[in-house]
């Protein structure tokens, strides 16, 4: 009976418990770790391995030989890689701020004290819940030359219909509108959650002090919202880097390759051309772009949150 407390007094017992707890922890984490290994680490490792090899499935007889950085060097000399990357960056520059502004507006609207809240919330959820490629198809029909609703409105106003999908600039605009429509509701949902954490008392105090609505927005809403804003921006930027479905459904990259994004070029290289080696190198480059953007944001948020911690 007395041996157990004696052992504890020994100091051996707690360490034993520690170990078994650690073992149990590891055991419980193992399935998740294994899953991550299989569905995240293994594919990424395969991708990098492929990117260093000639894996041309259009010509499997050639075999898979190590080619070093050849695929990457090819990419740097490939004008289509640079063009599609440039298009991707343009989509990021236009649609991320676009979705932010529209999303913030929607979130403020949804946060207003309506008596019946569900229609607004549902309106926010619907575009988000719609599969991307459907959104792309719907907007393609909107912008269609003969039967699209946009040109129909233009005609009613006596304006010549525009070639939305076969003029490079108009196609870029049409695709950007579709992306902003599709992604701003996600922004709005994230920002709405942020808005609801801002205490009402701050606005009441500001009201008493005679602050205008605009001052309230700039001095209270925006600073209090900044953590949610950054998270939303990171998510939106990463998905913007991967822009694929909407331009794929709306123009298929046309006219020519003028609306082709990097993700579309990767898809074409791997699934159409079956050149998995080169396609993997392109995907690895996109991964680097994605990591760079994310770490940039993270660094910025860490700095700004550190500053607010000191205050």
């Amino acid at each position, binding site marked *: 009976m007395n041996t157990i407390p004696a052992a504890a007094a020994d100091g051996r017992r707690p360490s034993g418990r520690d170990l078994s707890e650690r073992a149990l922890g590891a055991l419980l984490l193992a399935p998740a770790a294994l899953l991550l290994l299989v569905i995240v680490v293994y594919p990424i490792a395969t991708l990098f391995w492929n990117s260093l090899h000639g894996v041309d499935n259009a010509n499997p007889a050639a075999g898979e030989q190590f080619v070093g950085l050849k695929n990457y060097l090819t990419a740097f000399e490939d004008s289509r890689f640079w063009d599609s990357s440039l298009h991707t960056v343009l989509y990021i520059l236009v649609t991320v701020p676009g979705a932010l502004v529209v999303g913030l507006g929607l979130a403020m609207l949804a946060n207003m004290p309506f008596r019946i809240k569900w229609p607004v919330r549902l309106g926010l959820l619907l575009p988000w819940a719609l599969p991307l490629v459907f959104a792309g198809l719907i907007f393609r029909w909107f912008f269609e030359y003969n039967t699209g609703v946009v040109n129909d409105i233009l005609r009613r106003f006596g304006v010549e219909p525009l070639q939305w999908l076969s003029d490079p600039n108009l196609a870029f605009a049409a695709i950007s509108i579709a992306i902003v429509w599709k992604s701003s509701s996600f922004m709005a949902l994230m920002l709405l959650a942020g808005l609801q954490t801002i205490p009402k008392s701050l606005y009441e105090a500001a009201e008493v002090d005679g602050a205008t609505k605009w001052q309230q927005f700039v001095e209270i809403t925006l600073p209090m919202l900044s953590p949610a804003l950054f998270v939303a921006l990171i998510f939106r930027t990463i998905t913007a880097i991967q822009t694929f479905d909407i331009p794929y459904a709306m123009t298929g990259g046309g*006219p020519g390759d003028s609306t082709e994004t990097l993700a579309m070029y990767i898809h074409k290289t791997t699934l159409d051309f079956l050149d998995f080696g080169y396609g993997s190198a392109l995907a690895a480059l996109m991964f680097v772009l994605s990591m760079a953007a994310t770490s940039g944001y993270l660094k910025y948020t860490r700095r700004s949150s550190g500053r607010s911690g000191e205050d």
Partner: protein
Amino acid sequence: MKTWKILLAAALSTAFAANAMAQQTTLRIFTGGQQRPDVMRKIADEYQKRNPSVKVEVEVGGATSEAQQQYLSTVLTSKDSALDVVLIDVIRPAQWAAQGWAEPLDAYLGADRQKVMGQYLKAYVDANTVGGKVISLPYFADAQFLYYRKDLLEKYKRPVPKTWDEMMETAKVIMDGEKNPSLQGFSTAGAPIEGTVCTYLVPLWGMGSEITKGGKLNLDTPQARQPFQLYGRMKQAGVLPKNIAEIPTDRIRIDMQAGNLIFGMSWGYVWNRLENDADSKVKGKIGVARLPHDQGGQSATCIGGWQVAVSAFSKNKAEAVKLVRYLSSPEVSEMQAVMASHLPVFPSVYKDPDVLKANPWFADALPVVESARARPVSHQYPQVSDAIRSNMNAYLAGTKTTDTALADMKSRLQPIFR
């Protein structure tokens, strides 16, 4: 004694039933949304009726040749056995042979090989044989034709145009006369899709040139510029739709069916839809002719059509081959001709009275199909196609000139045809 007999009978019948269950084979066919899956289903039902031990499932995939191939590439690169029989575009057998996706059929045909292959139109024997091996069997033939509004041509007393210039002139006269703003002159595939490859090739061939010569790229000729110039003239004349660069293959059929198109360059299936669809406004008003050509050239057309291949990863190859041989039989060719105006792959079926009743124009279609030409053959065909169609598309959209489109096309094709 009696009980014993009953028991035995019961045991035997259970055994038989179990045996029959074990012998039931399920075959899965993959077909595209554009290749009349409804007709494929009817053909499959007929096959099931005759072969009760086989169940045939029809899986329907993407609406375009590329969308189908993208899906098939993922299935077959992962060596998935889900599909047994696959419908493939006439441009694919070389690629499928290089990839090892199709089970070569020589061993299954055995001594029949000569006899079986001898019945088809020669172009389809060539298209389905790669490096001496039979990769697939033809399901239906196809070529591009000029669909025209018979009623409008009669109204304006115009003959069926023989040259592109005649066609443009006729289209102008009719468009000016009808004063219908939705009526368009001539349409062909212009979107960045497979069909747009033929949009470039038809006028090129018409001038007696081709993309490659002896395996080498052959685009430094004056003829290589002609297709661009031809469509440029049509665009200037207002005969092409303004949004030509957005037009996919089936859009031509839809515009024609709505009565909004005078001339259309499209494939065999269009006829059946124009004559039989409930919403067709042009029933009995359509004629089909050879495609026009340039002055001094001759009419050319792209060979199309779909083949049936047995997946190399199928678990029921022997049964799948039997199904493929049925799908590629004169009987099925006739069914397709009547139900879908799919052009037959057997010369004899063109003369069949039922087929001619459903498609009177088939009487003159055989020489067109026989003269149809193949797109460049390469195991890298998707790159070849992409180089041609995206530059043709950019030209039609007005974002590239003849010079830039042709130069970009050449620079992308050069590494493939060295």
